[in-house]
Every structure is written in structure tokens, then in C-alpha cells.
């Protein structure tokens, strides 16, 4: 394959990965309405934002 063919493949992969990352971050920013956890217990589903956050 010519060098420009490889360039198109690499740029295409980068664009796809960037799109996936932006989509994932948009999903993680999506909000919800959380009922406070019961007293004396901790919540599950810990992610970067901490426990109790929606995905």
C-alpha cells in the first residue's frame, strides 16, 4: 500500500477513536436524580465521580 493509503487508515482510526471517546464522555455527563443512600451504608457503582453517581 502507498504511504498515503496508510495515512488515510491512521487518520480514520484516530477519528473513530475520538468520536467514541466524545460519545462516552457525553454519556458519562448525562444526569439523573439520586435518592440519598440509606444512613450508615455506602453505595455501590463507584466510578471516577465517586459512589452513587449515575453512569
Amino acid at each position, binding site marked *: 500500500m502507498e504511504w498515503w493509503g496508510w495515512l488515510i487508515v491512521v487518520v480514520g482510526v484516530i477519528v473513530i477513536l475520538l468520536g467514541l*471517546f*466524545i460519545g462516552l*464522555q*457525553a454519556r*458519562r*455527563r*448525562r*444526569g*439523573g*436524580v*439520586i*435518592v*440519598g*443512600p*440509606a*444512613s*450508615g*451504608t455506602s*453505595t*455501590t457503582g463507584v*466510578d*471516577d*465521580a*465517586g*459512589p*452513587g*453517581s*449515575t453512569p
Partner: protein
Amino acid sequence: MRTSEITKRPVVTHQGEDVAQVKDIVFAANGGRVGGFTLAGRGLFSGPKKEALSWESVGSLGADAVMIESEAAFEPHQSVLDRSARSGGSGGDVLGSKVLTDAGTDLGVVVDVVVEVDDDAHTCDVIGYEIEASEALETKGTRLLIPLPATLSASKEFLMVPDSARNFVGRDLAGFGASVAAFRAQLEGGA
């Protein structure tokens, strides 16, 4: 006001800095009071933030932005959750949960939550759920507002409401506050 109008609203300091956006609304089951917000960063590449904003730190909840004094108002995520921790809470998201009456009737699925902001008392209370009605309400698939008692019960699967709430169901926010007041007055009268 619906909580969907609050999520994604920018958090702006009094210096004019756009520092975050609202992600989740956190409320206590016991008393239905909003304790604060979890936050997400601004911009395409941002994800959820590790800090959260307690309701006490909110300067004002404006139509287009949540105003705060400065970024120093942010606090650890867990402390905001702990402040809203009460008996009867689940720690989960109520959107998508089923609403069940104490008589065992499934009224529908929660699609939004209605809050009432009192600027004088600087409080924000959960007063109702917007549900997609089930067959039990004879208007299956339509969106209805259902008033809530002052004390809520919520597990990860079901949100419990008194059966009499069916008699106070509304279709739009205009007049819903009066329905909630009448519903709560009836509960107190019957208690």
C-alpha cells in the same frame, strides 16, 4: 420546575467563570429535600467531576445557570451524598424506577422529578414525580404528574406512594403545587 431543566445547567461563579455543569440532583428520601448536585466538567472531552455542590453552597438557582460564590464551594462527592443519607433512601437513580402504591398498584415509570424552590427559605423540595402512566391510570403511555408525601420511600426497584395520590394526579405544572398541598393536607388529616 422539572429536574430535567436543572441537569446540564452551567455552574457559574460570581466572577463569571463557567466552572462545571449539573449532572445529578441528590435528594433525601426523608423530607424530600434536595441536598445538592453532582457535577460534570464543561466541554466535549469532560467527564464527571470528583467534586459536588451542596445546596447550602448554591447562591441562586437561576433560569439559565446555577450561581455560586467561587470554586471553593465545591466539596467531596461523598460528603454531599452523606448529607442526603436518610432511612428509606436507596442511593440509586429514580429515573426509570416504577411507582407503586401502598395498595400494590403499579402506576407507571418515573421519567422526571418535580421540585419546588423556595427562595426565601433557600430550600428545594421534591414534590412530585412525572410518570409515564401504566394501565392502572386508564391513560397508558401519557405523562402525568403525581404528588408526593413529605416523606418518601424508595428502593432500587420501587418508589412507594400512598394509594390516595391517584386522586391528585395532574397533567401540567400549572396548579400542581395546589394538588400537592391538598394531597399532603389530606394525608395529615387522615393520620
